[in-house]
């Protein structure tokens, strides 16, 4: 591909490399932003310094426009940045839902004033966002949501509750779907923003099967959203929500090809725990076949991610391959979790304690948390409905738009 070898790009690579060498604190080498399953810890001064350094360059959100605090880079340049970060053992300190979902959506649908107010703090990593979408009565059928927003002149008054609001206990702001017209379903939903630091908002963390979790229940009692923080038209929130969910899904499946994760390859783990036969093959032939099938499907998945990317650049219409990515990717990941446990045997059943290695304990929690992959961001079944209806043109019985 042409954009990998240009001389301009090489000059830029040199610039990034030098900048990382000067700014990335050596003490943070190999550290990462806390994964979904882990508890959040207070940032150290070194972490704060790194966040501010990256934030001021806009390189945590490298392709976002410069005028809102992004890096203003081409995707080729952005790959250089992530490549140089990885090379130095550095992580991107700017993350969360503001980066993954809300920012790209607001850049598309927000007014100039809204973008000026909300995007720069995301780029600097100063403001954390949470997602007020699902409700106890509106999961897969998201448009059935009932949290109300009543027009009070200069603001909306919000009453109701949301569930699975990841990171709500740490969030500063919420992007939220609210019902502004009870006579219609999809056309009665609006997309509003409000601060979490107000009296009408209460957050309760939810314990999950994997133990502690970043998920919360969030209750609104007379909470307040300013009129200026309505995104898009009144009752026009569903369109924006669908777009945001696309960002969420592409983030969840690692459509960029990162799927597979860090750590020891499953095949090597199997050799360690299960042993090998005289020909060097994994001794359990049944396990070996299933591992191989998964590895091959994983490879085809990654090939599909690459193909979708190339087709998106080269062809006029978007690639239909993207629609299958969430189900295909999450299924394969869950299979890998299951096989990890199987490979570890009884050592893969530890809940806590010194009898188990950190990797073994993490495998158990990862397996349990991984069950969420086919539930959140549009369940496996909802995704199948979407493919059936939007791609294959089969009749819609669920009205899941």
């Amino acid at each position, binding site marked *: 591909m042409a954009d990998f070898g240009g001389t301009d790009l090489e000059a830029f690579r040199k610039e990034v490399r030098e900048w990382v060498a000067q700014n990335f604190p050596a003490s943070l080498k190999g550290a990462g932003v806390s994964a979904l399953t882990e508890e959040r810890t207070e940032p150290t001064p070194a972490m704060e310094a790194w966040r501010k350094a990256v934030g001021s360059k806009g390189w945590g959100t490298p392709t976002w426009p410069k005028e809102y605090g992004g890096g203003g880079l081409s995707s080729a340049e952005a790959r250089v940045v992530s490549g140089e970060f990885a090379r130095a053992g550095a992580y991107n300190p700017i993350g969360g839902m503001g980066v993954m979902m809300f920012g790209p959506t607001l850049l598309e649908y927000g007014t100039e004033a809204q973008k000026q107010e909300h995007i720069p703090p995301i780029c600097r990593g100063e403001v954390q966002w949470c997602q007020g979408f699902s409700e106890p009565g509106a999961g897969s059928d998201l448009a059935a949501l009932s949290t109300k927003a009543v027009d009070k002149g200069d603001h909306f008054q919000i009453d109701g509750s949301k569930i699975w609001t990841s990171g709500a206990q740490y969030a500063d702001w919420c992007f939220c779907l609210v019902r502004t017209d009870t006579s219609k379903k999809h056309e009665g939903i609006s997309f509003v923003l409000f601060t979490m630091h107000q009296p009408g908002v209460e957050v309760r963390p939810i314990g999950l099967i994997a133990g502690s979790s970043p998920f919360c229940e969030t209750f609104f009692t007379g909470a307040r959203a300013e009129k200026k923080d309505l995104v898009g038209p009144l009752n026009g929130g569903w369109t924006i929500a669908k777009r945001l969910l696309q960002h969420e899904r592409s983030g969840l499946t690692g459509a960029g090809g990162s799927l597979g994760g860090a750590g020891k390859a499953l095949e090597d783990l199997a050799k360690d725990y299960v042993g090998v036969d005289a020909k060097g093959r994994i001794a359990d032939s049944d396990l070996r076949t299933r591992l191989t099938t998964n590895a091959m499907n994983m490879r085809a998945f990654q090939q599909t991610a690459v193909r979708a990317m190339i087709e998106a650049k080269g062809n006029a219409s978007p690639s239909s391959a993207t629609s*299958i990515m969430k189900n295909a990717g999450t299924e394969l990941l869950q299979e890998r979790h299951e096989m990890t446990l199987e490979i570890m045997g009884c050592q893969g059943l530890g809940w806590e304690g010194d009898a188990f290695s950190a990797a073994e304990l993490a495998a158990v929690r990862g397996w349990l948390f991984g069950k969420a992959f086919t539930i959140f961001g549009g369940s496996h079944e909802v995704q199948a409905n979407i493919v059936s209806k939007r791609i294959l043109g089969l*009749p819609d019985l669920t009205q899941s738009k």
Partner: protein
Amino acid sequence: MAVLTEEQSMLRDAAKSWVQEKSPVTAFRKMRDSGVEVGYDVAAWNEMAEMGWAGVVIPEEYGGSNFGYLSLGLVLEELGRTLTASPLIASGLGGASALILGGSDAQKQAWLPKIAEGSAIAALAIDEGPHHAPDKVSAEVKGGKLSGKKVFVLEGMAANVFVVSAKSGGKVELYLVPADAAGVSRTKLSLADSRGAANVEFKDVAVGDDAKLNGGAELLEKVLDRARAGLAAEMLGAATQAFEVTLDYLKTRVQFGQVIGSFQALQHRAAKMFTELELSRSAVEAALAAIDADSAEVPELASLAKAKMGDTFHLVSNEMVQMHGGIGMTDAHDAGFYLKRARAAEAAFGNQAYHRDRYARIQGY
């Protein structure tokens, strides 16, 4: 669908319109009913050859167009859609690749121009038992004479020349053996998919030094990988067509007062098939592109393409019959053709189990 060059787009469009006009599934049915010994319509093959399809991977100095394997894959995919029977894989892909990769200039001069113009058919005579096992070779060349039995030789009745694997001095080698050489005999196989195949026996067939191809077991694997990737492309076309025909049926067949495609039990199975087809397409195109790029990953990518495509064609062909219900069981419907072709194509050049094992071996586990 990969992003194509202009010449690839033209080639694909030419194949698409020829297949629609000249070679719908009814043409395959006619060929089957005729019982023709070679297992394909010779007049149709001549038309294909006239359009240059037999020489897509053959260098220009030997009468081909040298468009490459991805280009040939595009043609095979279109032919696969309507189950068009032809010796293109055996000859224009398998036999041609053996000569291109392992032939001396004299061998190339002798056969490639004829293969490119379709006047000679080459066929790979490799397997000796019911399962693909290219490393298990009993055929032997001793004192300049080849003896052995080869089975399930695709296009074996039509072949003018065989590419035969045989042991010589304990090592696997490939030999070019004209079908009319003394000591060659063949028996037509009548297979469920109605395509051409034969068992071929070689009895003290004289093979001179000019018969041996250069490259041994390594050449054999390279040739087979090209055949595997090309066959996977044909399977991709067939499976895609089988899926589209089934999808149309889901949208038109009415039961319980509604089209059956409105039932979620069928919708989700359709979505699954679509997902598998997308993944398979990626694997097939990646394997063909890797061959054109002479990548070191060709063996694993060819195994991936053949195994993944085998699983997907298996699934889609079964679902085609099941979702069509009773009509899908009748010989008058095309569903059975796809089901039969799927199993025959799966078995050729290694089934899914073979290629999963091979993939794992290449990866070192």
